[in-house]
């Protein structure tokens, strides 16, 4: 019945074809000219590793250790192109010569760099689309656990948010704002690593990366058609180069300090606030009995293991504790009695200083016939939260051999193995609930055993973090075999076949634990799960290149792509182990759940490209792709995605050259239009509807209709218009790349919320349309002239993106709005539905009640408008309560008085880099900034307003809240439990509260400061090595921000965040 995706006929065909190519080669050869020569730099030193390419073809070679090369030029080849990173590319017409020796000029300009485009490379000089390249410096000195972090602030048009300091955690990468209404933060770009498509770039060693760039506009990405509308990140890993064999070794030692902590109130403050917090106006029920209970501030505690807290009245029996460091104070409620207690800094128990190490060794080498590269890396990265850790082992092996004059074959293996340890708790528990455990808690009982705190969700971090296992391991491996066959002059065939596998295993175990001092839970839940991703990909590309009449350059490609992916998961949970000693399932006495699933996807594509230029003056490019995907509705499996772009190099025009001195101003203007697809938000079989399994009732298995089918589901289609210019001034000392774009995504796979009476929450449809508009600029400057002994390169980039919802599924409501709030609109002098999702609106808007101030006295509060948020029929307000803005002036505070607080997504992002070199010293500083996003500091509101288990508050709240009649305060009065009645901050939902907790997330981060020193050649040669570089690096050194939470990088609701650690790194690089 079921068709097997696992070994389709397709694979047989591909393997046959490859055999045919290899065997078919024997006996054929071509007529050609042989050219030899050497390549040297300005000073006459030979340059090994220079690319020598017959223009318009893929025929080429690399210079050897002496800078010399030999190349067979196929018939019709007229021009050689010499290129090498850091040098200006040069073209030479062969004519009748058989020997060509040339000199390459050093180039510092971005304008002459070579960028990787899909299935090929192009010089920026002739590029007509929008592509940004990551500064190699950013990858050099920090041993990144996740190399995507190097994108932060280094390229324009890309928003990178480091949302977690968990070692190895991937930052969020969103290109040009993404194209999703339902899940704007999930709009990840497509990653292509050495031609292999991947869902992310996790676990790649930065040391293995040769270069990294981002394809941004649709004309550039349309060659990847169906999945490219969120941008494409292309990474090339290091490979062998002809010439000298090089062995290099790198070592880094890093010390990580916690990035940021809350400043919590101390025990005295805690006790004062909580004990007085029970003396409340008469409208509240009398709950002073709690002052006598065994809780954080109550006096019902004793010195036994039965109570979790130290607070108690001073008695002759416990007086000796004062000699052991306990403190005392008069009871704020009844100063005639004395409280004794311990003052613990609970938060400090969560954190540690992390020590990390990174080793990487690589061997590179080869001849013009064969090259080889082997890289081996090991990173051990300790987090700043106790028990968090990431270890990674990486292998990168690749080789390339010339089988025949016109045939090269290569193979590549990229392998990583990692283990990750997390806290096994939610971020809420780890970062603010635990931090909010009463400072009077016992950390240890009198008998020296660890005390548990209140309960597992507000517990003693020392007890809970060390009494839990949450480890996962992952393998990622890529195997690639490919060839490059020059069939005819100018015509070549490049097949590449790859397999990409992910194997993840994880296990969790909760040993027996005290859930509060009196409740020992020994369920001992254990879980194990596996996840396998098997992906196979084949890309077959025919390329044709030729120069006609000396000035018409043509380069064309035609390709076919096959992609299939199978995900196979399994997980099992058990409980009832009799011991804490074995964390795996074999110890469980009872299985509680098992599950597995298998799911497949197949995507096929045909693609083509034509690049044409006339004397590099008029540039033209056409990309297209026709893709089909298995998970779309039956009627809409295929989609066509074209991209077209054109450019004009003004400085190559005669009139320009006549009017301006040479190289004063070089300028290209370019324009592009393209269409992309996306099906990222679509499950493998959602179009067909779903009946879910797994639920049970009374032990019987249930089947539930969970998804309504929609056979009409089709590709999301985004159209992008991009205008750009590449400018360079003063002989390339000042370079600009500027882009503006407008992208409209239609047929967005959007969930259409259904009325509650349908019994379904939503259905996936193609009815949304979203617009992103943006502006991007990249500037690089060589501040001092090249003859100066000090070199200073300055880089700056800035990007702005704004989104607007153009269309939503018709639902009979104005603007087809979904969600949102009905609030007073001052301009319209009426109530207007705002926020949510509505046509003409933006994503991620937040609304909340606005605090005008805090009532200073009861008399002042007596005149307050009627506050309908108060949860009591007695709506009296008192001094210390929040004075809310009555936006509509109707004398009543209700949901319609909410005001706009800001929105979740950053508007401006960018970075600044400085690289200063003097002799052997180099100083590199990189900063990045993000502005425009607003954060709802839920974590702070939660702990400040006593929403949970008698928790401690921040010092800020204690200091600045209303305490007595007449106070002019920043925050409302602290009532015990009163927040749930008076609603001075919290409004009963998690989406909004009080303006004082809506904060700007704007920040400027000093991301990297590196001082490096290359040991002089003379000294180095005595050591029989060829180079030694030392560096001292600070990473995530400081955030300039007003945000009061732990991590300002992400907008929206802060539900506990792992702040990025401040890293101090010493690194050494030795090349033999």
């Amino acid at each position: 019945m079921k068709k097997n995706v696992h070994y389709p006929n397709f694979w047989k065909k591909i393997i046959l074809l490859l055999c045919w190519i290899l065997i078919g080669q024997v006996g054929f050869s071509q007529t050609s000219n042989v050219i030899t020569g050497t390549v040297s730099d300005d000073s006459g030193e030979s340059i090994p590793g220079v690319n020598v390419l017959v223009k318009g073809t893929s025929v080429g070679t690399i210079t050897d250790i002496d800078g010399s090369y030999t190349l067979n030029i196929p018939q019709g080849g007229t021009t050689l192109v010499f290129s090498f990173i850091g040098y200006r590319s040069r073209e030479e017409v062969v004519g009748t010569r058989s020997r060509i020796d040339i000199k390459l000029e050093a180039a510092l300009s971005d304008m002459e760099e070579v960028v990787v485009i899909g299935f090929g490379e192009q010089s920026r000089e002739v590029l007509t689309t929008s592509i940004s390249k990551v500064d190699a410096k950013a990858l050099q000195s920090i041993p990144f656990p996740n190399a995507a972090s190097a994108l932060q602030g280094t390229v324009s048009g890309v928003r990178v948010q480091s949302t977690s300091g968990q070692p190895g955690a991937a930052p969020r990468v969103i290109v040009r704002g993404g194209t999703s209404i339902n899940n704007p933060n999930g709009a990840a770009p497509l990653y292509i690593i050495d031609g292999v498509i991947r869902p992310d770039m996790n676990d790649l060693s930065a040391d293995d990366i040769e270069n990294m760039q981002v394809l941004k506009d649709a004309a550039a990405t349309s060659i990847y058609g169906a999945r490219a509308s969120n941008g494409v990140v292309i990474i090339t890993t290091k490979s062998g180069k002809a010439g000298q064999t090089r062995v290099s070794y790198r070592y880094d030692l890093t010390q990580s300090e916690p990035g940021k902590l809350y400043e919590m109130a101390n025990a005295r403050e805690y006790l004062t606030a909580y004990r007085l917090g029970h003396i409340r106006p008469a409208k509240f029920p009398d709950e002073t009995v709690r002052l006598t209970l065994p809780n954080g501030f109550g006096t019902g505690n004793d010195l036994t293991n039965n109570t979790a807290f130290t607070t108690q009245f001073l008695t002759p029996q416990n007086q000796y504790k004062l000699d052991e460091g306990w403190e005392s104070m008069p009871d704020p409620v009844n100063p005639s009695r004395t409280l004794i207690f311990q003052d613990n800094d609970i938060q400090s128990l969560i954190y540690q200083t992390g020590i990390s190490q990174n080793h990487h060794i690589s061997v590179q080498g080869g001849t013009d016939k064969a090259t080889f590269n082997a890289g081996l890396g090991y990173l051990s990265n300790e987090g700043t939260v106790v028990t968090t850790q990431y270890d990674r082992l990486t292998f990168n092996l690749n080789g390339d051999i010339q089988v025949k004059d016109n045939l090269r074959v290569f193979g590549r293996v990229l392998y990583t193995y990692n283990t990750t340890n997390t806290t096994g708790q939610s971020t809420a528990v780890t970062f603010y609930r635990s931090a909010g455990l009463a400072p009077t808690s016992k950390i240890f009982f009198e008998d020296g055993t660890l005390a548990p705190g209140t309960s597992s969700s507000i517990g003693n971090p020392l007890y809970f973090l060390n009494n839990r296992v949450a480890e996962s391991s992952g393998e990622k491996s890529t195997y690639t075999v490919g060839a490059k066959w020059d069939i005819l002059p100018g015509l070549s065939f490049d097949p590449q076949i790859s397999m990409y596998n992910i194997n993840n295993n994880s296990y969790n175990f909760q040993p027996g634990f005290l859930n509060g001092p009196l409740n020992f839970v020994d369920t001992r839940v254990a879980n194990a799960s596996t996840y396998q991703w098997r992906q196979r990909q084949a890309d077959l590309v025919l390329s044709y290149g030729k120069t006609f009449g000396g000035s018409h350059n043509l380069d064309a490609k035609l390709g076919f792509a096959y992609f299939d992916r199978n995900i196979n998961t399994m997980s099992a949970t058990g409980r009832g182990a009799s011991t804490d000693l074995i964390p795996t399932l074999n110890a469980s006495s009872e299985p509680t759940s098992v599950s597995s699933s298998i799911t497949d996807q197949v995507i096929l594509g045909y693609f083509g490209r034509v690049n044409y230029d006339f004397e590099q003056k008029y540039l033209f490019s056409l990309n297209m792709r026709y893709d089909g995907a298995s998970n779309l509705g039956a009627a809409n499996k295929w989609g066509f995605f074209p991209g077209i772009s054109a450019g004009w190099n003004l400085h190559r025009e005669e009139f320009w050259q006549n009017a301006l001195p040479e190289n004063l101003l070089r300028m290209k203007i370019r324009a592009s239009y393209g269409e992309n697809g996306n099906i990222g938000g679509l499950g493998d079989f959602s179009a067909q509807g779903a009946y879910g399994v797994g639920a049970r009732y009374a032990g019987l298995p249930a089947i539930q209709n969970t998804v309504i089918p929609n056979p009409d589901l089709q590709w999301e289609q985004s159209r992008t218009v991009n205008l750009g210019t590449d400018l360079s001034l003063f002989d390339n000392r000042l370079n600009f790349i500027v882009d503006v774009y407008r992208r409209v995504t239609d047929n967005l796979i959007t969930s259409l919320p259904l009325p509650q009476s349908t019994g379904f929450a939503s259905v996936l449809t193609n009815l949304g349309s979203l617009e992103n508009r943006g502006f991007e600029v990249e500037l690089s400057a060589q501040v001092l002239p090249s003859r100066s002994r000090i070199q200073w390169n300055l880089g700056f980039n800035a990007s702005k993106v704004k989104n607007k919802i153009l269309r939503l599924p018709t639902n009979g409501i104005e603007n087809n709005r979904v969600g949102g709030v009905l609030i007073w609109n001052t301009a319209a002098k009426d109530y207007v539905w705002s926020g949510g999702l509505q046509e003409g609106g933006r994503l991620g808007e937040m609304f909340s009640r606005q605090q005008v101030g805090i009532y200073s006295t009861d008399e002042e509060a007596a005149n307050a408008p009627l506050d309908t948020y108060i949860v009591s029929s007695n709506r009296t307000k008192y001094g210390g309560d929040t004075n809310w803005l009555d936006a509509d002036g109707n004398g009543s505070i209700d949901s319609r008085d909410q005001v706009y607080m800001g929105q979740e997504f950053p508007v401006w992002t960018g970075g600044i880099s400085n690289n200063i070199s003097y002799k052997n010293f180099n100083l590199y500083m990189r900063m990045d900034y993000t502005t425009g996003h607003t954060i709802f500091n839920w974590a702070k509101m939660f702990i400040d307003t006593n929403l949970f288990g008698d928790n401690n508050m921040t010092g800020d709240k204690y200091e600045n809240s209303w305490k007595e009649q007449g106070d002019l305060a920043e925050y409302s009065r602290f009532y015990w439990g009163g927040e749930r009645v008076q609603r001075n901050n919290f409004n009963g939902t998690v989406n909004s509260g009080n303006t004082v907790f809506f904060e700007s997330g704007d920040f400027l981060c000093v991301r990297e400061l590196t001082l490096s020193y290359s040991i002089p050649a003379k000294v180095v040669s005595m050591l029989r090595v060829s180079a030694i570089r030392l560096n001292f690096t600070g990473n995530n050194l400081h955030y300039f921000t007003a945000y009061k939470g732990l991590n300002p990088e992400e907008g929206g609701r802060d539900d506990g965040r792992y702040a990025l650690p401040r890293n101090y790194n010493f690194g050494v690089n030795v090349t033999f």
Partner: protein
Amino acid sequence: MKNIKLYAVLASLLMLTSACNETLNVDPTSVITTTNFWRTENDANGALTGMYVELRNLSQSLHQLGEHRSEVMTPGLFGEGVFILHRNEMNADTPGHPDWSGFYRVINTANLILKFVPDITFASEARKNSMLAQAYTMRAFAYFTMTKTWGDLIIRTEPIEGFGAEVTLRERESRSQVFQLIKQDLDQALQLYPNNSFTVGRSVWSKAATNALKGDVNLWTAKLLGGGNADLNTALAALTEVDLADVGLLENFSDVFKFDNKPNREILMSIRHQDLEPGNYLWFMWIISAAAPNNIDQETREKIFPTGGGQGLMVMSEGVRSQFLENDLRKDATYFDIETINSTGEKSYLTNIQQKFKGTIIGGNRVFLSDPILYRYADILLMKAEAKNALGQDPTVEMNLIRQRAYRENFGSHTFVSGSQEENNKAILKERLLELVLEGKRWWDLVRFGKAFELVPALQNRPGQNHLLLFPIDNTVLSQEPLVVQNPGY
């Protein structure tokens, strides 16, 4: 020669890239899609179980709707707030109770069964009829609860299979139309049940439970929708028919609620909660560990620990607890007073925990897996008493059956003696409180007896505001159901 090679490559490429559409037809392995479901009896069985999974998701809601607005609840030690229903302070912004999506999910599962099951071949026709009967009863139960809550309703009798405006945009229809459907469904169901037996541990609908529901529905329409004696007689007949099944009062009141004693003979219909299945019933009426006192006696310690996920948000009010007489055997089985002992040995009341739905202890942890009871035999007796009294008949037999068990050896001094219709009503309503408190019945009882404004403290100063007898509709519902208008008064 060259051209041959070129053509060969092109030909190979074409060969490779042919037959692609076939390659794109991938079948699912681990999910069932709409196209391949509803074929066999097994499919129908799975879907039927799915319907009860949806019902279980409503357990908490049923309790909230049926109990929280009455005089039963008062805030616990965990602080105040979230008691909008208790204070009868609902409004469209914060209605404080669940919206109707869960109920319509239940209805949709029933509608799917009613649409597809008739065309499936079953090994036994009786099994098929029982399945259809359960779906009809379930639909009636969901609409009954909803119309008691919100009044007029959108009526859906077809499953949702598409999302065009004709399906999604509906207006509410009148209460009487809703009741017409409910009664019609109940009659259909009663004809279809093959016999009077119970299955799946009395946690799925049965003929007896359907009769109970029918009695309940007709008492409601008799008293509140002008159904009069006709409906009262229908109710009484249906309730009397319950006796044909294997049901009766247990000897000990507390045995009805014992975790190890489910299902028992008194139960007609309960919602099954069990280990390894989701559900967490009345956890918020247990004490939270953070508020658990230390200065208590051993008995108290054993009663309250382990606290599990207890939250102590709500406890039974003084006003209700004080109505239990000392020798009422139901008292200890209903709630437990926690008292602390001070340094001089004096005990003082701190708070209480409920005792009917205590859950059980697994791995040292309390899990609140007691079954919510929709109908049990004592409820049937009291509904019969209520119907008889309304018809001018004598309710003494039923009342005394209840009291005999409640007071056992002290029954003599608590015998029910029939008085005026008004006096009897008062006694029956109070007996229902003592017998059924915490079982999600009280608010409906107060409404049916017309005593809400009299007995609920939060409503005592608002007589005449009859719109309060219905609940408001959440603004988020109104914003997604554009043809639905808010209940008057909210």
